[in-house]
């Protein structure tokens, strides 16, 4: 089981801030493909991953990164702090 968090317009498109999923995905990209295959709203949110960022256990990471041992995955657009 893995916690998936969504922020900003990713959260709005998918329609929820977080969920728990059972997955056998080996990498972030695998997980994205799994989610996108679920429903239209996921497909839309993940249509262009170059417009997205991912954090694994609260550290910025890559879509090619492995998921083994990861408990929390977050998807969001590029940050706009400051």
């Amino acid at each position, binding site marked *: 089981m893995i916690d998936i*968090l969504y*922020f*900003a*317009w990713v959260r709005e498109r998918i329609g929820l801030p977080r969920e728990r999923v059972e997955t056998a995905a080996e990498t972030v990209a695998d997980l994205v493909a799994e989610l996108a295959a679920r429903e239209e709203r996921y497909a839309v949110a993940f249509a262009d991953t170059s417009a997205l960022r991912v*954090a694994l256990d*609260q*550290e*910025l990471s890559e879509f090619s990164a492995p998921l083994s041992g990861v408990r929390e995955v*977050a998807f*969001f*657009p*590029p*940050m*706009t*702090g*400051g």
Partner: protein
Amino acid sequence: MRVRVQAEPFDYGAECTGFGQGGRDVGAVVTFLGVVRDDSGTLAAMEIEHYPGMTEKAITTIAEEARGRWGLADLLVIHRHGALRPGEAIMMVATAARHRAAAFEAAEFLMDYLKSRAPFWKKEIGADGDSWVAAKDEDEAALTRW
């Protein structure tokens, strides 16, 4: 070194008072204050979303790097989240160093990294609808100078 992430307003003048002073080895203090601007004239509020837990960690990592790299005597970062009105303070950084170049560079480094590497997202709530502020290429490009 202090890092604060909060919904509440902060008092910029009070934070500046005495910051980095009192020792004999601080010659330069630089502060930056970010304020909600209203370019369109129709902004009702700026809604700032963040990623609790990661935000504090990401800012602390950036702040530690700045402190080490420029040998800062003191450093402060405050960043708000929630709904802010035009003219309200969003965030501030303050740096204290021996020399002015270090204090300036560290403050600019902090700003560049907070802008693109701390998990905050701004949404403009306007008279004619809401829209997420898009990250600018120039903000990402600004990181290459460090």
